[in-house]
């Protein structure tokens, strides 16, 4: 395998460690099976097919691979939850519903390297015993769905899909299933309901852990696009060697997607934890826009709690406890969790001192109010209340008690819903209001008390805010 060259202006930063994104923006690269095979593609699948399925799972366990979709749950452990005495069919689902605002990594894998994903799906299906795998791809990726379908057909022609895969007894079919624009389908049990042709109302856990009672009440493994691609590399290099990438308990590489007020937004594949927030923003992204200062960062997709510039955090590493600032946070699962937020889906949104935090929160609240599935009352009503209160603040109708009301609504959703959407929609409100109270107070006035009891009427009358 030759060292890839990359397109002018899209060369990876020297601090990057390209593995999953090896072929993204590569000179002369095409998402075809010929190119992929020329580059050593599907060798890991053939290697896996010579192993026992349980041994493949053991390698993934040994690699320490943690899910790249948001929760960071160890992939091999998830696979191990399939009941040992299972007699039902097992399904594998690739979650390609990439929809957490700030995240845009799976798009490039699907568009530029679909065979890497298919190889990952086949290896994983073999390990968990699935004969059918579905790729649930969001409706907003129409081109991606076509590319995947073409790649699946190419793999079939090459004898890598269907029956007797690569001349062995392994059989597996992969189907592309398109969503229809609902964020909640990224939640694994919501996704399963959607794949069953229903409204995507998440299921309650227990008892509906997908590994035991998933698609059609059969054991089902749902993994993110990037996670499944990592499986290929785990098998290629061996779990133990893979686990040496990154840091302890935060192994491998991961793709960080940076957007917002930096000079050069984009995607960067790094060894997990080998880079700090400051290095990411200042070195890889070229720093803040001219004349602007860092104000806040949402580190793992819009539902992650916001981090404020100037804050300090206490984290524990090999040398014991230490106090660090925002720029010193290592970009890994455990450090970001120790700082009160999360690595989530890898979507880093950077905001400078020109941003009004009430405006930012209102944008996020509008998203979650739109996307709540409506099944649980605290989330269905609360997400809309949080949007309405910030709508009213921005429309000039905020009253002093709004700040407290907003926080209290947020506090009463998290932990009271069937799925993690409750947390996802309340964490932004809880963290923004707690960390930037002055910005919200600025939007409230005592003289408004009693005047604007119906924020929608006010907003609609003045056309101040977009009704979406």
């Amino acid at each position, binding site marked *: 395998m030759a060292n890839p060259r990359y397109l002018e202006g899209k060369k990876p930063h020297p601090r990057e460690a390209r593995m999953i994104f090896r072929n993204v923006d590569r000179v002369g690269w095409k998402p075809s099976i010929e190119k992929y095979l020329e580059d050593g593609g599907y060798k890991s699948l053939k290697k896996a097919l010579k192993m026992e399925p349980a041994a493949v799972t053991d390698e993934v366990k040994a690699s320490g691979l943690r899910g790249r979709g948001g929760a960071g749950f160890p992939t091999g452990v998830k696979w191990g939850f399939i009941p040992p005495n299972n007699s039902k069919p097992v399904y594998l689902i690739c979650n390609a519903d*990439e*929809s*957490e*605002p*700030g*995240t*845009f990594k*799976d*798009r490039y894998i699907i568009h530029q390297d679909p065979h890497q994903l298919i190889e990952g799906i086949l290896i994983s299906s073999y390990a968990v015993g699935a004969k059918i795998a579905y790729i649930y791809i*969001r*409706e*907003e*990726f*129409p*081109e991606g769905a076509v590319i995947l379908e073409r790649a699946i057909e190419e793999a079939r022609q090459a004898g890598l899909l269907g029956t007797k895969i690569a001349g062995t007894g392994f059989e597996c079919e992969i*189907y592309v*299933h*398109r*969503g*229809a*624009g*609902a*964020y909640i389908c990224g939640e694994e049990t919501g996704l399963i309901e*959607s*794949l*069953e*042709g*229903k*409204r*995507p109302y998440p299921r309650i856990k227990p008892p509906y852990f997908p590994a035991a009672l998933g698609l*059609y009440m059969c054991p089902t493994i749902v993994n993110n696009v990037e996670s499944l691609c990592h499986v290929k590399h785990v098998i290629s290099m061996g779990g133990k060697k893979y686990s040496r990438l990154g840091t302890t308990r935060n192994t491998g590489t991961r793709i960080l*997607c*940076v*957007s*917002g*007020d930096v000079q050069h*937004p*984009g*995607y960067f594949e790094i060894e997990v934890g080998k880079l700090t927030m400051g290095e990411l923003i200042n070195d890889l992204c070229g720093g803040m826009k001219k004349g602007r200062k860092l104000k806040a960062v*949402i580190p793992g997709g*819009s539902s992650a709690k916001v981090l404020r510039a100037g804050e300090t955090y206490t984290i524990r590493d090999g040398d014991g406890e230490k106090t660090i600032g925002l720029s010193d946070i290592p970009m890994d699962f455990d450090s970001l969790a120790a700082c009160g937020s999360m690595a989530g889906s890898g*979507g880093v*949104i950077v*905001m400078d001192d020109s*941003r009004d935090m009430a405006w*930012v929160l209102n*944008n*996020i609240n*509008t*998203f979650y109010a*739109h*996307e709540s599935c409506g099944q649980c009352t605290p989330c269905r009503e609360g997400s809309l209340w949080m949007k309405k209160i910030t709508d009213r603040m921005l429309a000039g109708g905020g009253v002093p008690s709004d700040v407290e009301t907003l926080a209290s609504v947020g506090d009463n959703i998290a932990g009271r819903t069937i799925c993690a959407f409750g947390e996802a929609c309340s964490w932004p409100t809880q963290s923004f209001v707690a960390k930037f109270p002055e910005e919200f107070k600025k939007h409230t006035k005592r003289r408004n008390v009693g005047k604007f009891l119906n924020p929608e009427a006010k907003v609609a009358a003045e*056309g101040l805010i*977009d*009704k*979406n």
Partner: protein
Amino acid sequence: MEVPKELEKKADEAICHYPPEEQRSAALPLLHLVQQEFGFINDDAISWVADKLGVEPIKILELVTFYPGFRQAAPGKYHIRVCRTLSCAMAGCHQTMEKICEIAGIDRSNVSHHDPVAVSSDGKFSIEFAECLASCGTGPVCLIGDDFHEEVKPGNAKALLRQYK
């Protein structure tokens, strides 16, 4: 409703992707096929999908009303979806939306949560905001039909729309 043979064939093929006793799974794929063919999904189409899958029409209607990707009214010849979410908003998607509406002659004053699409008076373009199109590093982004466009700013909106005749 007259169902073209090709559509019928594609629908039967889609149904085969799921276990025989789980045909309801093909509901979303069939609705996509219908919407691609006719531009939107009406009551007849809902009944047709329901018949195909052996479920009550309400089981299909509840999908059409839930999923933002499905429409019950005709869009324009070219349907535009502008990303509204944070990174695109910081990059100026609201100005982009305003500019596109101005160029295409679209009035968005009557849109609402349940009726988010506005159509130009000549029926050529329709538009709505989308909740995150997952390309936050190149905002503002939009989809026109199935074509994806990055960095759509007020300054280049006119040239972009001119590609759609």
